[in-house]
């Protein structure tokens, strides 16, 4: 049957379809599966993307935030750097800078050190990310310039910064900056807690004025080039900011100084006005009386008795005398104050002058039945001063004492000697000075009470004049009194102009290691050796970067205690800053000199040298008012520089051995011997000319400058040992006996021993030891020959011989310059070095030099 075939086809087709369908479904399923997995993958990726994008967003937001903050900081730094803002102190500026560095470069810890004004040390000035304890430690430690420079090694350099990896083991035991953050567990290639990155702050001319050092990076990584560049850009701005701020600070200081000066000049102007109106009032008062009495007399001549007329004329006479006296006093005072007078200093007997004054005052005292006496330690006290001016002082003090003492009282003049000063006291049993009056007693026209001035007439200028006279002599005058119990005026006067006493700074504290006594000797030694009336020793106050006077001779106490000089300012400040000596021939023409200081400076020349210990300026020595009244020269500079070196050494040794009183004593002995020697040699030779000649000859022979300085010094001290020898042995004409000769022969050795505590150059000892050696080996003490004798000693031998020949000794007549040079030439080769003799002859042969030498002979 046919339908069954059709069924079969139908069945087959259905089976095929089924198979096909099954296959399709299979592939569909497969497809679906793969679709599903890619979907899954897609979903997964999407998550990832979202996550990533979220992360990106956060990061972006963070960066936006920090960069805004950062931008703000940087903007502020830029503002600070470029503008001078009156409200910003340097500390505020520095604070902003370190925080900007921290934010912008991504370091949690930032330290900024700035070079101090003296230029010697870097001080910690600003911090970020450090606790108080760490800050305190950093502030206590300053980094010396040398130490800082030792870090700047090429191997550490990155761009303009320096990265010192802990791996370099550079710091060794010592941690360079002394702070170590706890960074926790560290991965390979991360920042190590002992790594140091620092960026010097260079000015335009390449000088480092400070540096940043940074630590604990936010990203924990080693510093990237970018971070370093950021740091360096900020460093450039920091330099500008620091410079601006310090400029501004200095500007402020100058402004303050200017204001002070203006104020002072206004004060002076006011004082001047006040003075003029007081003077005119004082002058008009007697004139008014004269005029009124004269007119009244004229008008009423007919209606008055002779007695009355006589009384009127008496007033006129008295008042004209007063007027005359007043005018004289005012003129005298104005001359004293302006310095337009000639002071004639000559030696005279003070005891004698006092007796003279007292005998003149006698009649005045007698009329009041006042006993007047002189008490003196010696009948002859010779001082070098202006006799007439001192007579004025004694007369004024004496007549005041009598004036203010009741009948039957006593007035006593008492003279005592105190070292190189005399003390004159004028004491009375009078009415005394009230407490409130004592500080004005030396003021112009001051009178205790005008009701008293009727009883005790006077013009009120006497004490002012006396004070001025005493100060011109380098002395001081003081008054003590108790109301009703009498007064005592004390005048302290240097025996000779060179002896103005050394005053030490009152506020000095013993912790600064060198005693007042030693300081005084130091100043004394400098003044004596340099033949300067005025000498001061200033020390550096590091904290305030100022100089103050530690001790001075020839300056008033208020000047000694009140003077402070900024490092860099005026002459001493310049010297301290640059560490170089400065010779000023005319202070009035030198811009560095602040203001001329009245009568402190009798001559216009001054010399200032630094005192350095281990290369650091610790003080400055200034001298002026040369006793000869001539300007200082390059020779003086050489001598003072070498003295300053000794002073530095002595101070260092003494302060290093603070507890060793031996050291102090030895130093004091050396200084005293040099002082004595200088005083002795001033008696036989013109001031400083020995050192001067030594320098001239040394230079002529082409010695290096250091040797010339040594020579200047040695020529001033080589005979200190002579002080140990009884000089009377040299007064005996003829040959010295063996014993005396032995003593004399030992003096080079003694000299060398004495200066040893302040000596550091072998050379000096060698020269001192050999200055009596002869070229032919017949000298003493060692019998050295020719070139075995140091050149310095050969020079000094010639100068010594010349000096003794031309100045004459008790046992030998003096020779002229020409004769002396002939004698030197005759002995060249045997006693003297021919080269030295010729150099000496040449430099002093020219007419001008001969004159100079002659001038030396005359003095």
């Amino acid at each position, binding site marked *: 049957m046919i339908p069954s075939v059709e069924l079969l086809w139908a069945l087959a087709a259905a089976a095929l379809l089924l198979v096909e369908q099954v296959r399709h479904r299979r592939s569909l399923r497969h497809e679906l599966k793969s679709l599903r997995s890619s979907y899954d993958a897609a979903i997964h990726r999407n998550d990832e993307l979202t996550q990533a994008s979220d992360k990106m967003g956060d990061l972006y937001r963070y960066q936006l935030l920090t960069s805004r903050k950062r931008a703000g900081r940087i903007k502020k730094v830029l503002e600070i750097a470029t503008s001078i803002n009156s409200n910003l102190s340097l500390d505020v500026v520095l604070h902003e800078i370190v925080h900007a560095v921290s934010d912008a470069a991504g370091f949690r810890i930032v330290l900024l050190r700035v070079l101090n004004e003296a230029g010697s040390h870097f001080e910690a000035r600003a911090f970020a990310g450090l606790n108080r304890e760490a800050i305190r430690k950093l502030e206590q430690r300053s980094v010396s310039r040398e130490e800082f420079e030792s870090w700047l090694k090429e191997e550490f350099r990155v761009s303009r910064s320096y990265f010192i990896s802990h791996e370099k083991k550079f710091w060794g035991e010592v941690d360079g900056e002394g702070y170590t953050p706890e960074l926790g567990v560290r991965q390979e290639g991360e920042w190590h807690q002992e790594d140091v990155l620092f960026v010097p702050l260079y000015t335009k001319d390449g000088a480092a004025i400070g540096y940043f050092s940074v630590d604990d990076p936010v990203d924990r990584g080693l510093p990237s080039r970018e971070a370093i560049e950021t740091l360096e850009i900020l460093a450039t701005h920091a330099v500008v900011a620091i410079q601006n701020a310090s400029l501004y600070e200095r500007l402020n200081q100058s402004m303050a100084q200017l204001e002070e000066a203006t104020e002072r000049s206004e004060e002076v102007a006011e004082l001047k006005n006040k003075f003029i109106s007081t003077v005119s009032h004082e002058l008009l008062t007697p004139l008014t009386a004269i*005029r009124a*009495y004269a007119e*009244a007399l004229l008008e009423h001549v007919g209606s008055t008795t002779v007695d009355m007329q006589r009384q009127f004329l008496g007033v006129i006479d008295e008042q004209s005398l007063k007027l005359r006296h007043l005018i004289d006093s005012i003129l005298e005072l104005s001359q004293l104050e302006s310095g337009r007078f000639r002071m004639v200093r000559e030696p005279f007997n003070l005891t004698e002058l006092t007796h003279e004054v007292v005998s003149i005052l006698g009649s005045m005292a007698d009329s009041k039945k006042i006993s007047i006496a002189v008490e003196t330690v010696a009948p002859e006290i010779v001082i070098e001063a202006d006799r007439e001016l001192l007579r004025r002082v004694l007369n004024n003090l004496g007549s005041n004492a009598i004036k203010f003492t009741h009948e039957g009282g006593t007035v006593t003049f008492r003279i005592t000697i105190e070292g190189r000063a005399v003390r004159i006291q004028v004491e009375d049993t009078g009415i005394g000075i009230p407490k409130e009056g004592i500080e004005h007693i030396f003021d112009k026209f001051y009178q205790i009470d005008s009701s008293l001035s009727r009883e005790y007439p006077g013009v009120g200028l006497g004490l002012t004049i006396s004070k001025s006279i005493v100060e011109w002599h380098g002395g001081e005058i003081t008054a003590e009194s108790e109301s009703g119990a009498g007064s005592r005026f004390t005048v302290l006067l240097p025996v000779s102009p060179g002896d103005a006493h050394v005053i030490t700074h009152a506020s000095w504290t013993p912790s600064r290691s060198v005693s007042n006594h030693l300081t005084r000797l130091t100043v004394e030694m400098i003044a004596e050796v340099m033949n300067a009336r005025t000498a001061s020793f200033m020390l550096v106050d590091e904290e305030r970067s100022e100089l103050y006077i530690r001790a001075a001779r020839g300056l008033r106490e208020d000047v000694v205690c009140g003077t402070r000089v900024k490092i860099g300012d005026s002459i001493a400040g310049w010297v301290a800053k640059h560490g170089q000596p400065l010779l000023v021939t005319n202070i009035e023409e030198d811009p560095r000199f602040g203001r001329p200081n009245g009568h402190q400076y009798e001559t216009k020349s001054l010399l200032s040298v630094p005192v350095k210990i281990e290369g650091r300026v610790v003080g400055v020595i200034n001298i002026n008012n040369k006793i000869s009244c001539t300007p200082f020269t390059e020779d003086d500079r050489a001598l003072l520089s070498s003295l300053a070196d000794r002073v530095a050494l002595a101070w260092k040794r003494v302060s290093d051995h603070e507890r060793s009183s031996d050291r102090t004593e030895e130093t004091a002995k050396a200084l005293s011997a040099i002082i004595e020697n200088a005083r002795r040699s001033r008696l036989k030779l013109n001031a400083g000319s020995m050192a001067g000649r030594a320098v001239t000859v040394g230079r002529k022979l082409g010695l290096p400058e250091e040797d010339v300085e040594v020579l200047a010094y040695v020529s001033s001290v080589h005979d200190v040992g002579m002080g140990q020898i009884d000089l009377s042995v040299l007064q005996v004409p003829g040959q010295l006996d063996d014993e005396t000769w032995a003593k004399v022969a030992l003096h080079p050795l003694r000299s060398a021993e004495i200066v040893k505590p302040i000596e550091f150059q072998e050379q000096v000892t060698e020269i001192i030891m050999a200055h009596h050696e002869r070229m032919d080996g017949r000298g003493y003490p060692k019998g050295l020959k020719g070139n075995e004798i140091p050149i310095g000693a050969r020079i000094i031998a010639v100068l010594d011989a010349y000096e003794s020949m031309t100045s004459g000794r008790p046992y030998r007549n003096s020779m002229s310059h020409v004769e002396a040079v002939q004698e030197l030439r005759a002995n060249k080769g045997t006693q003297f070095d021919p080269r030295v003799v010729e150099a000496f002859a040449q430099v002093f042969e020219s007419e001008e030099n001969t004159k100079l030498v002659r001038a030396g002979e005359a003095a």
Partner: protein
Amino acid sequence: MSKGKILVVDDEIYIVHILDFSLGMEGYEVVTALDGEQALEKVKTEKPDLIVLDIMMPKLDGYEVCKNIKSSAATQHIPVILLSAKGRNVDQKLGFDVGADDYITKPFSPRKLVERINQLLGQTVTERPAPSA
């Protein structure tokens, strides 16, 4: 018969003496004071008709004394002549500001001072209402 009572104030005794003399010769009664405080005392006790007053004096200066006199109802009618060595315009102006009636500079002519006093007292006498008439 006194022409009137005059208080002379000056710390310079010679000036006080000569004014005492000159004014006495003119017929005035003279009382004196040597400083500012004394002057105010005397103004109260002596009730002078006119005051000659120095400026630079201890304790209380002439300006103060004058101001004091001119600010008190009891004494402001008394004419005050300032007599001073302070000769600048500002000094004079200050004198008139504190109420002085005249300002004469030292050195002065006693004759002229007396004339000025006569003038001032003449005026004030006529200006002043008669006490009893």
